[in-house]
């Protein structure tokens, strides 16, 4: 009897509390929220530790922004996603702020004895890649196509939601191999072996950044983007293994 009355009351209290918390968070503050590709997890806080970050697959972040997520800046592991968001008028025209390369990683123990990317053709190998909507997943498909290795996709045992999930599955030794950015491999030294992929087959891995149109802190967001593009910001990116940004090759796609 008591319980039956208690439940709605508690629910009401919870809702009231949620409103209170929401109200408090809306108070003006210089801190901005940056939605950034999972591969930037380690380096962005090094460039600016005072912001709030949400890291994940760029495609997931783009979808969240389109659903009205409270992001101020969107940093994607490709240009197409922020361009799509910009086309809908939801963020500014993206600029390239860094580049990356794709590598193949195997666990240190290398249970499947993979010595080169061509060994992925062996049957029974547990290859983990990112989903095709995730930038790194798209790049993976591209590099395999460039190398005429698309048949190895039959060895894929999981399509992960972002690059760090691929990294984790290989670093844990659960998967035999996976495609990640060279910068991701650097974050787990001693746990994975990096197999380089030929430069001629590399896709164009460009990271685009834009300011979300619905942002309430546009000036702060602008300052953050400037900081990423600044000498100091670029030095931090290069220290983490990212490639220097070059003039975006527009209208190539």
């Amino acid at each position, binding site marked *: 009897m008591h319980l039956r009355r208690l439940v709605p*009351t508690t629910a*009401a209290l919870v809702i009231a509390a949620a409103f209170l918390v929401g109200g408090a968070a809306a108070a003006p503050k210089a801190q901005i929220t940056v939605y950034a590709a999972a591969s930037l997890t380690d380096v962005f806080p090094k460039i600016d530790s005072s912001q709030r970050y949400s890291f994940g697959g760029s495609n*997931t972040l783009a979808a969240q922004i389109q659903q009205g997520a409270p992001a101020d800046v969107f940093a994607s592991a490709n240009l197409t996603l922020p361009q799509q968001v910009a086309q809908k008028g939801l963020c500014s025209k993206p600029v390239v702020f860094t580049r990356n390369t794709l590598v193949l990683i195997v666990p240190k123990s290398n249970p499947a004895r993979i010595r080169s990317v061509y060994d992925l053709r062996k049957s029974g190998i*547990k290859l983990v890649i990112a989903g095709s909507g995730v930038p790194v997943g798209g790049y993976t498909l591209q590099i395999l196509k460039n190398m005429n290795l698309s048949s190895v996709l039959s060895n894929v045992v*999981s*399509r*992960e939601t972002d690059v760090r999930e691929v990294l984790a599955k290989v670093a844990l030794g*659960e998967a035999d191999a996976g495609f990640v950015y060279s910068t991701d491999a650097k974050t787990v030294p001693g746990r994975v072996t990096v197999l380089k992929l030929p430069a001629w087959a590399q896709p164009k891995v460009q990271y685009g950044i834009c300011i979300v149109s619905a942002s309430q802190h546009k000036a702060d967001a602008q300052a953050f983007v400037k900081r990423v593009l600044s000498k100091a910001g670029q030095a931090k990116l290069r220290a983490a293994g990212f490639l220097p940004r070059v003039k975006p090759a527009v209208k190539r796609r």
Partner: protein
Amino acid sequence: MRRAILATAFFFAALIAFGFLVLPIVAIFAHTSPRHLISQLSNAVVTDALRVSLETTAIAQALVLLFGTPTAYLLATRRFVGRALLVTLVELPLVLPPAVAGLGLLAAFGRTGLLGSSFEALGITIPFTQTAVVLAVAFVASPLYVRQGIAAFEAVDPNMVAASRTLGAGSTRTFFRVVMPLARGGLAAGFALALARGLGEFGATIMFAGSLQGVTQTLPLAIYAEFDRNFDATLAMGALLVVISAALLLALKLSALWQASRQSSRYRSGLLSWS
């Protein structure tokens, strides 16, 4: 006067709570036209996910029945030191965050895990297979069945069992002809709850089994994977899960009613009565 204020306050609190709980479910169906939802159901991602979900849950539920029933029976009928501890351990996965369950499954059955490394030596790899999905589902869902099962077996009148035995039935016969029929309602309730929980499994599965269309990608995983690509397909899958879950709950309620009207015994399923 005071009473009236309190009653009104409660009424509005209940109204808000009710709206809060119902609105998201209605929104899934209201976001796009029903015809569009149905057309999405023929999407290969959706059909594959539905098949994987049904296959893995069916196997997991069979295992839950096979191992959970004796476990529940023993825990319900035997009194021994550490019984309370065992019951708590069995219930633990119920309150465990699914991500922790996934982590635990990896640490136990992963290629470098406690048991997994031995399996690996035998040439059996569990992660990224449907077996992994089944294990994840069974791990999170079975406690619901065992818990209900203990309650159901405990509610069986010991006099009935004693009568059966004194009338010459062996313990096996008594179990299958007396105990099981009496506990059936409670067991079915536990089974339905475990089934619903298993169908919704997400966290442990994505960590332990990964996500591959047609192999390990269950409906909840497909919803997550398609969220940014095809929002309509995710809505269709969401609607599908709502319908399945609602059907399960309804079946549960109806069977509880049916049981109650059919049996005049003191037995009650307890947890899942209407009031």
